[in-house]
């Protein structure tokens, strides 16, 4: 039936348009997870039975008077409007709240879902966490365990399957919302750690979603590894503090507009890291994104060399080079993990870096191509920047950053080109975003795998970033 296909399409699109204040139920199966609206009638919550079954098999329904006949995978069930009893393939069942028939659509109460679905689907494996409106069909439950390390403070969340939560950071906490994952807690909903940086992780669930909240005194950052099965929570490093200023003159000076310690007649103040705003928490200066990874190999540079692996090698070399020069850098993907473009952008944006560098490698051409974003057509409304053109406000800084990196590479005798490129996730980043595509400087692809070449490229890129460090720092 065509309308059943349209209903399926609506089910797929519905999560994108559901409002936060609407009641929802999420159904988890081994094939898929989906969310439906819950209708309230006479103080009871109802959901469309056809809509629940649509993604699970072949389903159709007909109405005759007050009788609603459901056919699922060749088996018939019969419900009556206003009646608590129903006839299903397994047996006759008694529902705690009567069935409702409205405009040809059959609704069962949430309370009745487990026995109804168990009978219609012919399975005993129906678990309903009713308070949170989360329904699990079959062996789908996903669990997690925690592993806390000190020095530096790090919390590892290990999941039994790959996850892709929505991550939101705010002062003192990082929230991970699991919209599609059938996550359930262990015995403890809240675990505390005797650590100021990361103090606790707690589980909660409501309105069809599960959430893990990590609290701490420092800004927290999440990174994925182990093909999406591990999330590591860590604190952003402290920026290297400049040496204490010389003893101040006896005459009071006016407070400068730049973020420098203000000289006074008092003893020298404690040296503070440069910051455009007083009290701004320290963050990674650069986020380095080794492109591709996991199931996404990138270019097959040779039978043994995959682009994803070389991207990671270059990103690590660049991170080391920057850190050796006192610039904090985070390698976004520090393992062979699969990350989507949206995940990369979200993670990088949550780190609020001064600059983002995506690392690619290629067998084509010579030297390094340095790209800034070529933005698509999109309209931003009001104070909110459209996702597709999030880079727009900082594009004017991304371009000279690309130029500075080109200049740095040329000092290291690397042939370069500077271009714009329609390349995600550059356009989704709120920090100046650059992509570098590294090709060998000779006819040998193996050069890409040499430590000397990697170090030379890293040195050139780092030099370019450092040349604009103050400007990038003051802009974030």
């Amino acid at each position, binding site marked *: 039936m065509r309308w059943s296909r349209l209903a399926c399409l609506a089910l797929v699109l519905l999560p994108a348009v559901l409002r936060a204040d609407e009641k929802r139920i999420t159904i988890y199966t081994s094939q898929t997870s989906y969310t439906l609206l819950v209708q309230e009638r006479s103080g009871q919550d109802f959901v469309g039975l056809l809509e629940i079954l649509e993604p699970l098999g072949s389903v159709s329904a007909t109405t005759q008077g007050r009788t609603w006949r459901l056919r699922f995978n060749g088996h018939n069930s019969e419900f009556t409007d206003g009646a608590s009893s129903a006839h299903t393939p397994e047996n006759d069942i008694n529902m705690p709240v009567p069935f409702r028939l409205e405009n040809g659509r059959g609704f069962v109460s949430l309370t009745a879902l487990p026995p109804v679905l168990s009978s219609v689907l012919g399975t005993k494996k129906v678990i309903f966490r009713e308070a949170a409106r989360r329904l699990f069909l079959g062996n789908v439950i996903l669990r997690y365990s925690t592993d806390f390390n000190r020095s530096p403070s790090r919390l590892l969340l290990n999941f039994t399957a790959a996850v892709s939560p929505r991550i939101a950071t705010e002062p003192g906490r990082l929230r991970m919302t699991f919209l599609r994952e059938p996550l359930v807690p262990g015995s403890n909903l809240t675990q505390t750690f005797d650590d100021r940086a990361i103090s606790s992780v707690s589980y909660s669930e409501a309105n069809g979603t599960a959430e893990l909240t990590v609290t701490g005194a420092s800004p927290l950052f999440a990174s994925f590894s182990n093909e999406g099965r591990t999330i590591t929570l860590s604190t952003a490093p402290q920026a290297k503090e400049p040496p204490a200023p010389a003893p101040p003159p006896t005459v009071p000076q006016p407070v400068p507009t730049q973020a420098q310690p203000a000289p006074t007649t008092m003893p020298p103040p404690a040296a503070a890291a440069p910051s455009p705003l007083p009290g701004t928490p320290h963050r990674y200066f650069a986020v380095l994104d080794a492109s591709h990874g996991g199931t996404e190999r990138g270019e097959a540079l040779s039978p043994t060399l995959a682009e994803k692996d070389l991207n990671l090698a270059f990103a690590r070399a660049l991170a080391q080079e920057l850190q050796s020069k006192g610039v904090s850098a985070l390698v976004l993907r520090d393992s062979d993990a699969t990350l989507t473009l949206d995940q990369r952008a979200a993670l990088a944006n949550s780190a609020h870096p001064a600059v983002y560098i995506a690392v690619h490698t290629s067998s084509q051409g010579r030297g390094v191509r340095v790209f800034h974003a070529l933005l698509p057509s999109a309209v931003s409304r009001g104070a909110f920047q459209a996702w597709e053109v999030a880079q727009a406000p900082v594009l004017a800084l991304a371009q000279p950053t690309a130029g500075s990196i080109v200049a740095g590479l040329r000092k290291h005798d690397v042939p370069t080109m500077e271009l714009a490129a*329609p*390349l995600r996730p550059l356009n989704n980043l709120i920090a100046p975003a650059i992509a570098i595509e590294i090709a060998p400087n000779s006819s040998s692809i193996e050069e890409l795998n040499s430590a000397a070449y990697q170090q030379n490229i890293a040195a050139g890129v780092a030099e370019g970033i450092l040349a604009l460090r103050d400007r990038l720092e003051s802009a974030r």
Partner: protein
Amino acid sequence: MLVAVLGLTAYLWQFKRTAARLPIAPDSAHVAPPATGPSEQVTLYVAYDSPPALYARAGTIPLSSGRQERAEGVLRALLAAYTEPEAPHPLPAGSEVRNVFLVDPGLAVVDLNSTLANSHRSGILTEELTVASIVQTLAANVPGITRVKILVDGQERETLAGHADLTAFYDVGNVQRMVEEMKPPQ
């Protein structure tokens, strides 16, 4: 006569049922350029890999008079240049433009075949050259096109071959600026 009509009806009904059950095979038939039509002067923006650049090349090809057919014709001529031996920007054999749809105002939707995308060389610059040459060639030969959307086998695809973004609409002016920025390697 009645028996014949009933028999034919039953046959057609059975035929329709069978056809509805059969999976729809992807249309793999080659789409050939029009064999006839007045020859016209066109400008193809041909990509070169080394050094990477786009060059405007004048040519004469048979074209139909309709805007849509014209768009398809110039793009097929462009792809033919990339699938010849010694092509300056080689694309996989069998790369084709399935359709071009013109949606007013100013949008061209280019449907490429999966052979082109699935076997395209992977890399930011090489994919960008392909996209830019398609956009520039369309804009130069079909007046009024301001934006281009690229599909593969009728579907939206995240990237061409792992890099160039295909989820967005390409603004002709932006692509023009990108092409002008292509400088020879230092």
